[in-house]
Each structure stands twice: as C-alpha cells, then as structure tokens.
C-alpha cells in the first residue's frame, strides 16, 4: 500500500543503522524453571525505516522491546547478546545512562492507551515531565513543546486539551497523546508495542498513516510490534517473525510475504482472513502455542509443523537463503503463496 521513497542510496542507508540487536537472550528465572522469553534474537533497523516484529502473544516480541529499553524487571534479565544503538551497546550502560536515552532517543508506545496514561495526572503534567526529564527548559518552553507535539499528532485545540485528564479523551485520542509524548524529543528510535490493537479499525488506519509519516519526516527508525500481518504489510519495510522466543524468519516485507519460507510464516499468512476465499474454511495453524516452560527440543514449531521430520529435533541453524533474508528451518517451504 505505502511505498518507501527509494531516494536514499543503499550505501548511505547501510551506514545509518539505528539499532542492531545481536544474539539477544532475555530469560526469566522462576520457581518452575528458566523461561527463555527471548532466545538468540538478532535483527537491525535503519534510520527512517520500519521493522515489523510479528508473532503470537507470548512469542517474546514485547520482551524484546523492553530489553532494548532496559526495562526488564527481575526475575527477568538479559542473559546474553548485544544491543547496539547507534554503535553503543545498551547492555553495558548503567541505569542512569539508560534513563537518559529512554523517552529521549528511544521512545516506546504501548498497547493499551487506556492503561498507559496515569489516570490522576493531567495531560500537561504527563507531557511536561517528559520534557523536563531530558531538557533543561523553562515551564513555558516545556508547555509550548507539549502543545506542539499534541498538534502534530492531530489533536484539535491542543491548548485546551493539555489541561484535561486522560479519561476525558477517547481511546484513539489517548493513543495520539502517547504518541505525542514519544515524539517530544524527536527520538532516533520508536518501539511501538501493538499500539493500534485496542483501537477501532478506522482509527487504527489513521494512526498507522500518522506514525509512518512522522517517522519518515524525522528519519526515525521504527519497530512495530504486532501480531497482525496485514498491519506489517501496509507499514513495514522489513519483517521479523518470532515464534516461542526466536526469530524464525526475517527479510524484506515484499519478499517474506510473497515468498515465505518458514512453515510458521506460511501458516500465519494463510490464516489472514482476507487471504481466504469467501465461504471456504479459514486456514489455521494446527495445535496450540507451546508453553515457554515446556518447549519441544530443537525447533519449537515442529510439533505443529507439517514439514517436520526427525532432523527438527535438533536446533535448526540460521541460514541466509536469499539476499537480505534469514531463516531458521531445516525444511523450508519454497513455493510461493498463491
């Protein structure tokens, strides 16, 4: 639907990698055992580009986002890997340095706009405190910045709305406020964790278009976490598909959606309702998402996979089946989706 302007040459884009995650593992130590919520995950996103991080709930996509921000709370911890943000490894930074980046260079938008804004603080308080957290400015200046940010995300009469409380906004408007807060310091990277899932479809489309425009205009890199492939198709440049804590497939959106190789990606695309013929049975992936505590050995998807054989009881290696693509599967499906 939307095309990315191809004006940038490949070489400059390569030099402007905003975030590169290498071999990230985030584990949760529980009484029942170690949960590998994120397991050896690698991806990168460039300036002005959008990466769609796709998976079912519990696949580790949100934890990946929180790991980047350093907001994984005990019993969770980053067990391995590097998170390079503009060349700096975030896993090596102290809490104070991370706090300086949060909301400033790296911003996050959450899933449920009803829950993310503090119900008892006015919008101006919640916005201006974000300004003050990273900039030494006057109250007036902070107020002006907040107002401008609200205006930028399309909230009418921002001066008045600033002194309102969150419950006086609709869900869509609240999410716009959250986006405005994320944009206050014109971050280099925005992590959006299913920000449109809780919204109506029409509002969802508006916000998608809005965010895409803002990211493009400011050269912000965007990681869009979602379970909805159709959102990714319209928005992202690249897509990484997560299953049970691992990225199983990764590449350009056009290629991955047209020629998915991992059986799980196949299943996901097959189960998008619009792809199914009217009247025919909706295709589903058989079985249930396994518990992270009790994953099958080897490829975690093998118990639900029609292609699986005894090879799959071993860990599948990461392969690069085509230019710019990554795959973690012994038995890729090679035929294109019809």
């Amino acid at each position: 639907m939307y095309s990315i302007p191809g004006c940038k040459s490949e070489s400059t884009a390569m030099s402007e990698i905003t975030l590169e995650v290498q071999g990230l593992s985030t584990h949760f130590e529980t009484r029942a055992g170690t949960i590998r919520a994120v397991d050896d995950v690698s991806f990168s996103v460039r300036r002005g580009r959008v990466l769609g991080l796709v998976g079912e709930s519990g696949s580790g996509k949100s934890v990946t986002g929180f790991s980047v921000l350093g907001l994984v709370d005990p019993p969770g911890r980053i067990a391995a890997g590097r998170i390079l943000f503009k060349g700096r490894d975030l896993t090596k930074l102290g809490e104070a340095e991370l706090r300086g980046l949060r909301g400033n260079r790296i911003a996050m938008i959450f899933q449920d706009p009803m829950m993310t804004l503090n119900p008892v603080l006015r919008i101006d308080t919640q916005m201006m405190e974000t300004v003050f957290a990273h900039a030494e400015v006057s109250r007036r200046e902070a107020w002006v910045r907040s107002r401008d940010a609200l205006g930028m995300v399309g909230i009418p009469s921002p001066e008045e709305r600033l002194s309102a409380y969150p419950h006086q906004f609709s869900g869509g408007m609240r999410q716009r406020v959250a986006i405005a807060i994320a944009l206050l310091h014109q971050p280099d990277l925005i992590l959006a964790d299913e920000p449109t899932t809780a919204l109506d479809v029409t509002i969802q489309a508006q916000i998608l278009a809005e965010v895409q425009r803002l990211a493009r205009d400011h050269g912000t890199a965007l990681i869009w976490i979602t379970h909805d492939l159709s959102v990714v198709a319209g928005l992202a440049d690249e897509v990484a598909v997560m299953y049970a804590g691992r990225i199983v497939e990764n590449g350009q959106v056009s290629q991955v959606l047209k020629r998915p190789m991992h059986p799980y990606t196949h299943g996901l695309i097959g189960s998008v309702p619009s792809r199914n013929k009217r009247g025919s049975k909706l295709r589903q992936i058989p079985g249930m998402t396994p518990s992270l505590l009790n994953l099958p050995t080897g490829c975690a998807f093998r118990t639900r996979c029609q292609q699986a054989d005894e090879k799959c009881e071993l860990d599948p290696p990461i392969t690069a089946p085509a230019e710019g693509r990554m795959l973690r599967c012994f038995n890729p499906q090679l035929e294109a989706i019809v």
Partner: protein
Amino acid sequence: MTWLLRRLVQALFIVLAMTIIVFVGVNVIGDPVDVLIPPDADQAERARAMVALGLDKPLWEQYLRFLLGVLQGDLGRSFVYNEPALQLIGSRLPATMELAVTAVLLSIVVGIPLGMFAGLKPDSWLARAIMAGSILGFSLPTFWVGLMLIMVFAVQLGWLPSTGRGETAALFGVQWSFLTRDGLAHMILPALNLALGNIALVLRLTRAGVREHLQLEYVKFARAKGLSPARVLFVHVMKNIMIPIVTVIGLEFGSVIAFAVVTETVFAWPGMGKLIIDSINVLDRPVIVAYLMVIVFLFVAINLLVDLLYTVLDPRVRLETRE
C-alpha cells in the same frame, strides 16, 4: 448539587434516627426514675419528682421535648459537675481533638513510608518484620499496649510522663498541650497508643497499593519516558494510592475519636472519652446523652466531609458528579 443535597438529607436522617435510639435507650431501657430519684424516696416524693422531670407525660411528648432540647443545644445539666452537659463536653473536646489529630498525623507519617518500603522490597527481611509488626498492631488490644508503653517508657526507663496533659497554653481561648514542651512530652505516649492500629492500617493499604500500582502499565510507560524512579514512585504511584488512603484515614478519624475513650482512660488524659467513662460509672445521664449526640454528629459530619474530599481528589469522580 443534587448529590450533595441527597447526602445532607441522608446525614440528617441518620442523626434523627440516633436521637430516637439514644432516647429510647436512656428512657425506656434504662429507667431514669431509678437514676434520678433517691431509692429511699417515698411514693409521694417519686410522683412529685416525675412530674417535675416531665416523666409522667406520654413517651412521644417526652421525645419531642428531648428533640427540642437537642435542637437548642440543651441536653440537661450534669449531676456531678452541675454545669450544662453540652458545655462540659465542649470543654473536654479540645483535649480529645488534639490527641486524635496527632494520632492520625502519626499514622500517616509513620505508616506511609513503612508501607512504601514494604511494597517496594516485599521480600526483604525488614519488610517482613514490618508486616509481622502490623499484624500485632491490628490484634493487640489498645489498652494493653497503652499499659505496656507506660510500663516501659514511664516506669522502667522514666523517659516520658505517663498521665495527664501536662502544661498547657492558650490559643483561641482554648488550652492546648501541643503548645508547650511539657505538654508535647505528655502527648507522645497516648498519641502513639491511639495511632498504633491506624499505623498498621495505613501501612498495609500503602503496601498493597504500591505493589498493585507498580505492576500497572502506566508505571512502565512513565519509566519508558525516562523519568527518575523517585518521580515515578512519589508522583505517579503515590498520587493514585493517596486517594483510597486519604478516604480511609478520614473515615478512621471518627474511630480514633471513639477509641480515645480507651487511651484517655489509660493515660488519665482529661478529654471527653475519660469524661464519658466516668459519667457512665456514676450514671451522669445528661452527660452520657450529650456525649452520644456529639459523637454521632461528629461521625456523620466526618463521613460527609470524606465523601466530599473524595470527589475533589479523584478527577474521574469529580467529572461524574459535576455532570
């Protein structure tokens, strides 16, 4: 506004109901004749006294006279002190009030920080100790704790005085203990004693609130904005938690005044709580009635105020009541 009006009518109704209960309790269940007339009086004397007191009239007429008295602030004269009962209560009210207010302040100043700590570090040994202590604060009888405080701090250690108000100073024509060093020293033990149950309550509420709210999305969002942990805790979390805490503290203020009866008796604190116990023991009926009416009025007023305060504190409620 209709909401406020409805609450006012409700409050008035409760006060009215309590006048009936008190009247029936004192005049029907307890026989005033026995109390007011010497047992060795003969029939003629009894009859004369009953006419003089209006006790020969039908019950509803007696009640109306009583109600009229309540409205005019005339609840009879104390037999013991021979002054108007209401005036007597009024003269003891400041002592009780300063004790109760101090106790409530103590429960906030001590309870909230301890509760926050226990909520932030629920697994630390100190938090566990605080929680175990709060169970004791709930279950120990107030009077027994008061005795122990006296035994340890007044008798054994000799640090603090055990009884009375100590030196007082006048402010607005009323004598207060908190204005003098000696008076303050006298207030520490009784105020602490009265506060103990509430400290435990505030502490538990705060802990539960902190634990619950730290899990909520808005806290994670606030952290993702790059706010300092102090700002997240003291502004974002506390502002949310304070709403129920303030409500509970407000409502508990009434019960602190009621429990002052016990503390004042233990520490011989000359407030209205000690007065009512003494009056019950010598059957000083007008004072008992006056005390009950005053305390019912205080209670209803406090409940009403807390309701109002709640709507002011919570922006969500505020909007609903406005519309």
